[in-house]
C-alpha cells in the first residue's frame, strides 16, 4: 500500500454513485501539465495513457477545491457532493 493509501484509509467517506467532478476529456487530452494528477491531495486524478482518458477516483475526494482552481484549461466541472455524501472529517 502506498503512503497516500494509508492516509486516505483514515478518512471517513460516504461515496455517491455519480461523480461530483466532471472533467471535459477533450480538454484533458490536450492539457500539457495535467496538474490535477499531482496537486490533488487525495490523488483523485490519474491519466490513463492508453485510453487517453482522465480517470477520476471521485470517492476519495477531500472536497478542498484545489483542482478546480489549478485546472489549466479551467474546464473542470466541480461541485460539492450531495448533502448526504462525501467526506466527513472527525478530526478537522
Amino acid at each position, binding site marked *: 500500500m502506498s*503512503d*497516500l493509501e*494509508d*492516509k*486516505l484509509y*483514515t*478518512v471517513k467517506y*460516504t461515496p455517491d454513485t455519480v461523480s461530483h467532478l466532471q472533467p471535459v476529456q477533450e480538454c484533458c487530452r490536450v492539457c500539457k*501539465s495535467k*496538474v490535477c494528477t*499531482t*496537486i490533488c*491531495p*487525495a*490523488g483523485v486524478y490519474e491519466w490513463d495513457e492508453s485510453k487517453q482518458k482522465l480517470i477520476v477516483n471521485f470517492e476519495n475526494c*477531500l*472536497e*478542498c*477545491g*484545489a483542482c*478546480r*482552481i*489549478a485546472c489549466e484549461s*479551467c474546464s473542470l466541472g466541480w*461541485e*460539492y*457532493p*450531495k*448533502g*448526504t455524501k*462525501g*467526506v*466527513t*472529517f*472527525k*478530526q*478537522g
Partner: protein
Amino acid sequence: MENRENKTEVIVVGGGPAGISCAITIARAGKEVVLIERGKFAGSKNVFGGAIYAKPTREIFPDFEKTAPLERKNVEHKYALLGEEDATVISYKKKHEVPESYTVIRAKFDRWMAEEAKKEGVILVEETVVRELIVKDGFVKGVRTELEDYYADIVVLADGVNSLLAKQVGLRGDLKPEDVALSVKEVIKLPAEKINDRFHVNDGEGCIYEIFGGAMLGMLGLGFMYTNKNSVSIGLGVALSELVERGLRPYDLLDKLKKHPEIEPLIKDGELLEYSAHLIPEGGYKKVPLLFGAGVMVCGDAAMFVNNMHWEGTNLAMISGKIAGETAVIALGKRDFSENALSHYQEELEDSFIIKDLRTYKDLMSGVGERAGEFLGYYPQKINSFFEMFTSVDSVPKRDKYHKFIKSIFTDRKIVELFKDFWVAVKLLWSILK
C-alpha cells in the same frame, strides 16, 4: 414559488464559525434564521490547524470555556526555522491567567457551536447543499438546494473559501492559484503524557509550532503543529501556485516534513488518526470580494478573511459573521434589504480590526512571494549555518570563523540579490508600519 412555508427572514449558508456567529446574532435579536450546512453536521467538512482565539470567541459565546469541547490552552509559541537537516527554534512561553487560545477539533467544536445556536432559536438544516442563489429584480431572494427552494429577506454567504455562491452572483471572480494555499494535515494519536513530555507542557496546556523552511525551503509555504488532548496535528500550507509550478504533491512535502530531525521525535510512534486537506484563502486585502449586494452579504473564508501573518482565521470569521448578523437585524427592522442598507456591513468591517489588519498586510504575500527563495529558503538556512558555526568547536580561531561567515553573506549569491532583499524588506516593513 415563495409561500409562507418556505420563507424566512434570514438564510445563512454554511455552518462554520462565520455562519454560526451570524445566525446566533440574528436569533438573539428575536429574528427568524435558518442555517444551512452541507455536511452531516456542522464541522464535518471543516479543517484548520488549529487554534481558536478566546477573546473573539467570548464575544459570541461568553461562557464557552465552561461547556465547549476544548483540547488544550496554548501557553507556548515556537517558531522553527528548518534547514535541510538542522533547525533553529525561537520560543515564547507565557501562562496567561486568562487563556488566549485553545486547540479544538472542528468536528466537535463547530458542532458544539451549532448546538448552542439551536438552543437560541437558530433553525439548523444539515446535509443540505445550496446549489445556487435565487435572484429576482436584482435582489438575492433565496437559495436553491437539491430538494427545494427557500426564500428569505437576506441571504448571508458563509460558504467557505470556495464560495461558488459569491461567484454566481458576481460578488467575486474566479480564484487564482496564487490566491489560495493548499493545506494538508495529519492528526497523530499520542498519549497525553507523551505530548506533555515532548512539548514541555503540563496537563491541559498546549504548544504551537510555526515551521519555516524544511520540506518547504524556498517555497511560499509554512508548516504547523498543534497539540490536542491526545493527539498532535501536523500540517503545512503551500501556495497552490508553487505546487502547480513545481509539480509537487502536497502529501510528499508533509511526509518529508515529518521526517525532519526536529519534528520526527515529536511525533514518533504516533498512530495516524486522520488525514485531511483544505484550501486557505491567502489573497488578502486585494482579493477581498464585494462584501454585500442587494439582499446578500459575504463573511468568513468566503470573503477571504484570513490574516496569514498571524495565523488568524476563525476569529475574523466569527466577528465578520457577528457584524453581518447585526447588519441583518438593522435591515429587518427597517424592512430595507437594498445594497444601500447592507452597506452598513462594509462600514462596520472597515472600522474593525478585520479590514484594518488585512490592509496592514496587503503587500505581505506578494512581497514575500516575490522573494520566497530568499526569505523562506536562503535566510532560514543562513541562520542555521550561523548557529552551526557559532556552536562548532574545532580549534579554528573564532575571529576567522566570523570573518568567513560575514564574507559568505556577500559571496553566496550575486551581491545585487542582497540589495533586492533589503529593498523588498524595507518596502514590506514600510507597507506594514506606515
